[in-house]
């Protein structure tokens, strides 16, 4: 029962954040200088018709009613109509959002696996050659532009070596799951770059610090093999923090994914949103922001709950 209450509390904690996020997102449309309705329709409509269109978007109501209508639309009308395309925003965004989620998921897996592997190798070889090498790699990698890193990967692995597809999500004639995986490798690696290195640094530091602690020294003095010490004892102790870091890195990862989508021509929401920015299609931007923010908050919630479940000291 205690656990359930705790989870409920975490869920309730999201509500005020969502409220603030939604108000800010709503205001985006109102803060935009210029009149998108005017810009889109004035050329081939009379001023009276423009007013009718404006009213159909609900832009003649008082601000708080517009907000209420906007929130209602989010649930019932697919987030309102896109100005440029005239369709409900979520109808336009959701198919691509699924692709973005696939890429993000690939990024999380790559980040978790590579980050832990690099961190462990560096950590158990503290101050020896593999550690120095890994840290040099981490420092250099952290200063790479994700966008540029993606390009370099394309250049090396697709154009030069010809191992992996250049861009897109599937081959022209389709190709099933294996084909999708092949298309995921390079964009996944680039999107996960920064988060992977953050995680690697963190895992390494965790191992180094834990190896100085009393329980590890005791086990070591009793002849517990090092493999078991790192895998079982240290691993179990830093696991909650590792999960936490991965959860926190989702924001960085989403940012990476949106950069990477444009490099690899990935059919995700990144490209749509950038186009929407250039076309001042703010309902579309608002819908995208809400989707990403919601996704991010849900991931954070899941992370918190997982961390709590993994940490027996927090159980009551």
């Amino acid at each position, binding site marked *: 029962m205690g656990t359930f209450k705790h989870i409920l509390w975490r869920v309730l904690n999201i509500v005020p954040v969502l409220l603030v996020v939604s108000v800010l997102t709503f205001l985006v449309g109102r803060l935009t200088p210029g009149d998108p309705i005017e810009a889109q329709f004035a050329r081939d409509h009379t001023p009276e018709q423009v007013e009718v269109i404006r009213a159909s978007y609900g832009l003649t109501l008082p601000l708080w009613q517009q907000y209420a209508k906007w929130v209602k639309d989010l649930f019932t009308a697919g987030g309102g109509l896109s100005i440029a395309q005239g369709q409900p925003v979520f109808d336009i965004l959701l198919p691509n959002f699924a692709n973005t989620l696939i890429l993000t998921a690939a990024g999380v897996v790559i980040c978790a696996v590579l980050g832990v592997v690099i961190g462990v190798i560096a950590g158990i070889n503290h101050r020896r050659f593999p550690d120095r090498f890994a840290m040099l790699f981490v420092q250099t990698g952290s200063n790479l532009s994700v966008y540029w890193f993606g*390009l370099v990967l394309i250049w090396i692995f697709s154009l030069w070596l010809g191992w992996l597809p250049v861009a897109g999500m599937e081959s022209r004639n389709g190709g099933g799951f294996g084909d999708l995986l092949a298309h995921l490798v390079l964009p996944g690696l680039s999107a996960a770059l920064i988060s992977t290195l953050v995680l690697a640094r963190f895992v390494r530091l965790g191992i180094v610090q834990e190896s*100085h602690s009393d329980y590890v020294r005791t086990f070591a003095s009793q002849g517990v093999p090092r493999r078991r010490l790192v895998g079982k004892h240290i691993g179990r102790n830093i696991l909650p923090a590792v999960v936490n870091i991965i959860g926190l890195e989702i924001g960085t990862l989403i*940012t990476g994914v949106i950069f990477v989508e444009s490099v690899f021509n990935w059919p995700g929401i990144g490209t749509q949103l*950038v186009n929407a920015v250039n076309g001042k299609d703010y309902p579309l931007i608002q819908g995208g922001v809400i989707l990403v923010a919601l996704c991010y908050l849900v991931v954070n919630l899941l992370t918190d709950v997982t961390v709590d479940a993994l940490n027996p000291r927090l159980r009551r």
Partner: protein
Amino acid sequence: MVLTASPKTRAPRPPGRPAPRRRRSRLRVNAQVTIALLLIAGFVLMSLLAPVLAPYDPDLADGGVKYLGVGAPGHLLGTDELGRDILSRLIWGGRTSLVVALVASLASTVVGSVLALVAGLSGDRAAGLVMRTVDIMFAFPVIIVALVFAVILGPGTPVVVLSIVFSAVPYVTRVVFAEVKLQRGREYVEAAVSLGAGFFSILFREVLPNVLGQIVVYGTGLVGGMIVFSSSLSALGIGVQPPTADWGRMISEGAKVIITGNVYPALLPGLVVLVVALAFNWLGDGLRDVFDPHGRRAGR
């Protein structure tokens, strides 16, 4: 007011803690800082002297010399898909990139530090308010912030600066807040309080001098990441707009022709971004060793 109780050095580390790492020799730290400073000074000078140094007009498109490779006669680093001289564009591009990164770092460091100092020194309620606001700011991935600013302001350089500041402030605030809290609990601050020192006296005379090192270190460390991030934003098309020469835009323009095997127009600006960002990182690391000689971060 003569009675300042600030300690000259940090308190000794408590016994029973893991042994501190061997201090890196002062010489090595100095060498690192010197190299980083030389690199940074070089790039700043290069940008300032761009009109003198650049062999060509950065926007001059010479259709007769497209896609020259590195080392081509007359064009040291080759030319891009429009026949523009890459070296000249790199030199001019430094101006926007460096200014954006420096302005954004300075702004976010100052805003974050002020928030943290006020929150850390003025009671739980103010601290709670500031830190909850910061939490909410954390709920926006950087790219979303950038897109929102871009749709409000229209794509351009201000978008880059504002979105970087908005996303960096929460980090600065958290780091500095932790440090301020730590100092606030120390005896020398208690002593000053018990001697009747006011809010501003404690802020400026006691706490600020003791957290300034950390602030400078963190702020310096930010610059590199900001150069990298702003280049990515410009590459995406919502940052610096053409025809301004900018490293990020050069990367994205080069990206369009990389498929034809012409890799230099995209490769070279990315390398420059990497070197500049690394230089700021080295400077930040070196400064930390200077300001924090006890190496509280064990195991670095």
